[in-house]
C-alpha cells in the first residue's frame, strides 16, 4: 500500500521532511535574531529607528508570504544578483527561501517580543534607570530576559506557524514536503493516502514543538 513512497528519490519522503526541518530551524534562528533587533528598534530612543521598525513590521505583515518568497527568487536573485554564495540553483533556492522566511517571520517575532516587553512591570525599567543603566543595558540586562520568558508561548505559536509556512518554499522549487506532495498527488492514484501521510508528518513536527515549548513557557514564566 505504501509502495509508492519509495518510488521517489529526488527528493525522497525523508529528504523532503528533512528539508522542511532545516528550513524551519534556520529560519527560526534567523527570524529570532532579526525580530529581536526590530523589537529593539521599535522601543529605541532614536525616532528614525522607531519609524523604520514600525514601517517594516506593518509592510511585511501585510504582504502574502508567497509574494515575498517569489520575490527573493525573481527579484533578489535575478535582478539584484544576490546569489547567496551558491551557483547551484537548488542550494540557492534553499538559501533564498530561508531569507524570505526570516524577513517575513521576523515581523511577527518582533510583535511578540514587543508585547512581552509590555508585560514587564514599569518598576523594573524605572529601577534600572534609577541605578544609572543606559537604554541598551536596561533592555539587554533587565527587560529582554524577562520579556523572553513571558513570550515563549507566543513565540512557540510563531515557530509552529513557521513550520507550516515553510511549505510556501515549494513555490520557488525548494524540494520540501509540499513540493513532494504535489508531485506525488499528481502522479499517484492514492490521493487520500498521500494526503494522510503528509498530514501525519506535519502533525508529528508541530505537536512536540507545541507541547515542549508550552511546558517550557509555564516552567520559565516569571512568577510575580
Amino acid at each position, binding site marked *: 500500500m505504501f509502495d509508492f513512497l519509495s518510488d521517489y528519490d529526488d527528493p525522497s519522503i525523508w529528504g523532503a521532511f528533512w528539508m522542511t526541518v532545516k528550513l524551519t530551524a534556520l529560519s527560526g534562528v534567523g527570524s529570532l535574531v532579526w525580530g529581536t533587533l526590530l523589537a529593539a528598534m521599535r522601543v529605541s530612543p532614536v525616532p528614525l529607528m522607531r519609524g523604520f521598525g514600525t514601517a517594516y513590521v506593518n509592510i511585511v505583515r501585510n504582504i502574502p508570504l508567497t509574494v515575498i518568497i517569489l520575490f527573493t527568487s*525573481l527579484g533578489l*536573485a*535575478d*535582478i539584484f*544578483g544576490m546569489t547567496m554564495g551558491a551557483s547551484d*540553483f537548488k542550494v540557492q533556492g534553499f538559501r533564498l527561501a530561508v531569507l524570505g522566511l526570516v524577513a517575513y517571520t521576523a515581523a511577527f517575532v518582533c510583535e511578540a517580543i514587543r508585547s512581552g516587553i509590555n508585560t514587564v512591570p514599569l518598576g523594573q525599567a524605572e529601577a534600572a534607570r534609577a541605578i544609572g543603566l543606559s537604554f541598551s543595558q536596561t533592555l539587554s540586562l533587565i527587560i529582554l530576559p524577562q520579556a523572553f520568558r513571558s513570550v515563549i508561548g507566543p513565540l512557540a505559536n510563531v515557530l509552529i506557524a513557521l513550520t507550516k509556512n515553510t511549505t510556501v518554499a515549494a513555490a520557488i*522549487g525548494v524540494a520540501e514536503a509540499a513540493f513532494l506532495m504535489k508531485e506525488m498527488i499528481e502522479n499517484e492514484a492514492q490521493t487520500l493516502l498521500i494526503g494522510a501521510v503528509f498530514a501525519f508528518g506535519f502533525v508529528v513536527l508541530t505537536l512536540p514543538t507545541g507541547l515542549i515549548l508550552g511546558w517550557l513557557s509555564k516552567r520559565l514564566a516569571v512568577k510575580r
Partner: protein
Amino acid sequence: MKLRKVSAAAAAALVLTLTATACGGDDKDSSDTGSGSGGGDKIKIGIKYDQPGLGLKEPDGSFSGFDVDVATYVAKELGYEPNQIEFVETKSADRENALARGDVKFIAATYSINDERAKKVDFAGPYLLAHQDLLVKADSDISEGTDLNGKNLCSVTGSTSAQNVKDEIAPKANLKQLSGYSECISGLQAGSVDALTTDDSILAGFAAQDQYKGQFKLTGLKLSNENYGIGVKKGDTETVNKINDALEKMVSDGAWETAVKDNFGPANYKNEPAPKIGNIVK
C-alpha cells in the same frame, strides 16, 4: 443597544459580501459543449493566456496568437461564429482533465502529441511542427547543446524540455525552474540565467516583444520535434475527423499561411511548412 447595533452592522456586512459573491459567481450558462454544429450554442475552447504569438490575452480582453487563429478557424468549420466562441485558459497540467470532463470542446494550446497523452485524449492534426530550442542573449557564444554544461538553464516548472536537456544533452547544466516563461526571460535579460529552453515557436513570440526586441536570438538547434495537435475528448472520433477536415481546408485555402504570417512574421520565426494531417514527426 450598542450591542444590537454592532451585531446588525456585522450581519449587514455579511449579507453584503454574500450578495457580492453571489453576483460574481455562477452567471455562466451551462451551455452544451457536446453538440456538433449548433445554432445559438456557445463553444468552449481551451487555449493558453500567456504565450505571445500563440495564445495571449490582450489588454483589451481579446485573444491573439497562432493557436487562437487556428482554433477560431476550426470552430468556424464546426459551425460556430467567432462571437459564439468562449476561450478558457487551460494550464498544461489541466488539459487532459478538462477534455475528459467535457469542460472544453477542444484544446489548441501548444499541445504536443505524444504517446502518453494519446492514451488519455485523442488528437486531431498536427497543425504545426515546432522544435525544442534555446533562447540566448544576442551576443551569447552558446551554439551547441553541449555548450550548456556548467551554464544556467531556465525552464518552466513541470515542463519536460529542461529535463530532456539535462538527461540527454548537457548533464552538467544548472537547472532553474520558474513558474512562467516571462519570469525566465526576465532572468535571461538580467543575466542570472544563460539560456531558456522550450519550443522555438514559444520562444520566438517572447523574443519579439517590444521590450526584448534585438536582445535575444534562437540557436536553431532543433533538439526535439513537437507536433502540435488539437486535443479532443478520448473516443470522440467524429469531432477529430471534422477538425482534421477543417485543418486540411485551412492549409489549402491559404488561411494557415496567413495565420503563420500574422503571428510568427513579426517574431521572425522560420516555421516548418504545414504538416500533413496524421503525419507525426518523431
